[in-house]
């Protein structure tokens, strides 16, 4: 056992020295750059968020929600709390709505489902997570 340790010691020193040399070789603080992907991703989430808000702010949608006894402000709060990924999925649902069909009805359905499943804690999409939480 002892001989083994004596034999491996130089190896571990070499590895440690190698790693140190590698880290010294990196530019001063390369890790500090924010990549383009993060920027584009955020812009996309932002765009989808405003699309969802637009849909929610349509008078017909608000009226129909109210007629179902749902407070649009409640839905609004829920939408605000969506993470970027959840926003993306919700916007995708909106994209896949039947064109030319009952758009208002479909939108209302999406928002109502958002609230109901949320109350029941059913799905991951609708879990209570604050915007920009550490889930990513």
């Amino acid at each position: 056992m002892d001989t083994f340790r004596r034999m491996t010691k130089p190896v571990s020193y070499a590895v440690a020295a190698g790693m140190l040399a590698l880290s010294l070789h990196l530019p001063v603080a390369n890790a500090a750059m924010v990549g383009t992907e993060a920027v584009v991703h955020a812009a996309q989430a932002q765009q989808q968020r405003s699309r969802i808000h637009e849909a929610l702010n349509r008078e017909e949608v608000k009226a129909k929600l109210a007629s179902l006894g749902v407070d649009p402000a409640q839905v609004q709060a829920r939408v605000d709390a969506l993470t970027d990924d959840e926003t993306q999925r919700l916007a995708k649902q909106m994209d896949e709505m039947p064109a030319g069909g009952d758009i208002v009805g479909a939108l209302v359905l999406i928002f109502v489902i958002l609230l109901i499943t949320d109350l029941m804690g059913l799905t991951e999409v609708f879990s209570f997570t604050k915007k920009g939480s550490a889930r990513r």
Partner: protein
Amino acid sequence: MRGDRNARPEPGVFFLVLLLATLAGCATPQTDRLIESAAAFPQPVELTAVPFFPQEAYQCGPAALATVLNGSGLNVAPETLAPQVYLPERQGSLQFELLAAARRHGRVPYVLRPQLEAITTEVASGHPVLVLQNLSLAISPQWHYAVVVGFDLTHAEMMLRSGHERRHITPLRTFEHTWRRGDYWAIVVLPPDELPQTAEELPYLQSVLALEKLKRWQDTAIAYSKALTRWPKSLGAHMGLGNSRYALGDLRAAEAAFRAATRAHPNAAVAFNNLAQVLADQKRWREAEQMARKAVEIGGDNADVFRQTLARIEARTKN
């Protein structure tokens, strides 16, 4: 069907199903709309200079890709492309492989909106469009890649480089059917200094991002600066340009791009953070510290990165 021993549908039911299936596939809303708007393109358009590569066996993928690549000014033979995009066991090519191969040749493939108008608009501005068609019915698909090189709305026709035909003419309605069965998939393949006519900001940036992954920084720098000519305020394009130049080691040029980003978006912390880093790399510590502090003040997503940047720069300025 005849060879299937278990299936013995009533002939009447069979024909009813067939009839319904045919009827359901008859409407061509996009063609109707396009022909109504025919005034926008009163003259036929045809890109006669786009080369033609007759396909071999099932190799329509390599042939179609070679057509658009050569149309964009490259000199590539389908035989060179075949190993990159052709799957012998499937006797065909997958869409993402065509996209990947185009990127490897320094081109920016852009997926068009699923509308006929998008195709005609691109062709009218000189860009041949690679499309996926299903020439048969959905139950026994016959996938086919071809390239749209022209159209004539007065006669409701499309012109394609397709299979063994240099100038395949197909009625617009037929094309809409076969294209719909191909899920309306269509791309243009352009050099980085040329924007698709129908490009939208974020989808276009996404397609440039895919080139970033291949570290084709020279190409991405060109594409981002081209994108800025159409969307001068685009934060993604400003940042992409800065990051590409940074990756190329051109600190001065990167600095200019990030500065432009901070001017267009005075509240974009990422722009100040990356500017700080580029200044730090030039050992301009005081300026760097100022910018890093600004990023931390604004905060938001990536706030931990901003604090890290500041901390590292402060470690230098305090000594």
